[in-house]
């Protein structure tokens, strides 16, 4: 069952090849003008009606056009609508439910957020129409980002109940994805409850990002319900879910532990104190529901790890944060290479 979590550093596929069929021709030209290094840094493409199209790497623009409006592609409202419909596969009826969550998943795990006029039904947002802007977020999985964490969250290869926390945008989801992949590579049966389709980025039920060979994904399912369902149906060795925060989530985590499945979950919190103060995670911490706590910093950097009794297992020697604190979780991953393996 146990196997050292080895992996091959995968070459990131060029997003331009995957998304080429979806991009309008002027945008295709803009993307084609990027150098390979710039293309590898791209985090999102933004299109707004009557505004210049932007290709961004974090907060930096990487498209090769000047800041003036001249000489750049300024899509019309109709261009944006057509692009949005292309992203929806000209089958909006099929994607409306997904779109209600704010975005649609594309091949390769890339995601498109669409803005426009929201149509209400019974006072709730039902669907969006008359699209006026598109944000195309480039998925950049970081295979191996959990390498440094794995020795901390396993005991002689056995997975432990773990809570990964950080401020938003530090890469908790990316970390969970890689934890799933590495556990699956080690021969464990992994179950992912992916309420917001962010961990596995399923498209038509198929994970677009690498979550490992023995991983089952329950896509777009509420966490608590999904965890119980996953336990009942797939009996996973490890259950992974993102951003816990409801009382039902806590109950489901307890149920999973009783069933013998290790739980690896994430939560938003900037510090252990903040985690303790939050209603649900606070209860889980007091109940000692977890055997490991892992704190991530900007860029997905492993900052600190605790055991179940809050004894510090690991602390990064340098707490300085990278200067680019933009949403870089998907691109500038770094983990401490000097992680003391015997610290667990």
């Amino acid at each position, binding site marked *: 069952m146990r196997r050292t979590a080895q992996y091959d550093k995968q070459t990131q596929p060029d997003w331009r090849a995957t998304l080429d069929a979806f991009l309008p021709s002027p945008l295709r030209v803009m993307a084609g003008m990027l150098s390979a290094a710039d293309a590898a840094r791209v985090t999102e493409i933004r299109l707004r009606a009557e505004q210049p199209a932007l290709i961004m790497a974090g907060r930096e623009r990487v498209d090769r056009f000047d800041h003036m409006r001249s000489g750049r592609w300024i899509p019309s409202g109709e261009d944006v609508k057509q692009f949005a419909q292309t992203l929806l596969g000209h*089958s909006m009826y099929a994607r409306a439910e997904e779109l209600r969550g704010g975005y649609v998943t594309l091949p390769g795990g890339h995601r498109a957020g669409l803005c426009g006029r929201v149509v209400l039904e019974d006072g709730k947002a039902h669907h969006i*129409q008359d699209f006026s802007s598109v944000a195309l977020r480039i998925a950049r999985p970081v295979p191996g980002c959990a390498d440094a964490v794995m020795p901390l969250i396993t005991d002689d290869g056995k997975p432990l109940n773990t809570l990964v926390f950080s401020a938003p945008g530090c890469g908790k989801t990316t970390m969970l994805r890689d934890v799933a992949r590495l556990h699956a590579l080690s021969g464990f049966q992994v179950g992912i409850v992916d309420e917001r389709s962010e961990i596995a980025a399923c498209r038509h039920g198929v994970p677009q990002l690498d979550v490992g060979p023995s991983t089952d994904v329950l896509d777009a399912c509420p966490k608590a319900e999904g965890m119980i369902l996953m336990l009942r149906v797939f009996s996973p060795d490890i259950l992974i879910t993102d951003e816990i925060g409801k009382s039902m989530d806590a109950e489901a985590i307890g149920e999973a532990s009783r069933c013998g499945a290790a739980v690896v979950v994430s939560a938003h919190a900037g510090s252990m104190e903040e985690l303790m103060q939050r209603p649900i995670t606070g209860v889980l911490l007091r109940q000692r529901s977890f055997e490991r706590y892992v704190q991530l910093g900007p860029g997905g950097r492993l900052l600190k790890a605790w055991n179940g009794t809050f004894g510090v297992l690991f602390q990064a020697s340098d707490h300085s944060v990278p200067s680019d604190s933009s949403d870089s979780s998907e691109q500038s991953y770094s983990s401490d290479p000097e992680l003391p393996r015997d610290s667990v």
Partner: protein
Amino acid sequence: MNMTRLAFAGAACAGCAMMGIRMANRLVRREEAIAAWSRLLDALAAQLSYVDDPLPDVLMRSVSADSPGDARLAAVITDAANAMRRDRSLSFAGAMDISRAFIDMDASDAASLLPLIRELGAAARPQQCARLDSARAAMTAMASRAADKTSRQKRLYISLGLLGGLALFMCLMG
């Protein structure tokens, strides 16, 4: 000389009769085309009310070749669905050869279907189903008018063609 005149008059008579038959046949083909569109819209409405598949797949499943009209429409729809699969930027309206799709129909028939064709796949499910329902209702009314017109005018066109041909024949021979 008489033989030439006879042949010319015969050809003119046959031409007139053919024209009448062709006009009657156009009515039949229009009726078939409307019925085929009507059946396609029924199938689409049934599929789109519960299926989450991409539009090209739904279109491919909705066509049939049960009648000549269905087969002609199926060829156009299948080509459009394949074009949409090849080029993701194409909408249904962009992928479809409109002139082929409405070749047997009147301009007014085409005009009543074009808004639906332009919006197919571009609306959320309830709106999509509502538009389909309204198009189906329009098609039902159109089909009944077409059937009525065919039953009234089919024989008339054939008779007029034959009589006109006969009259022309007699004039030319006389």
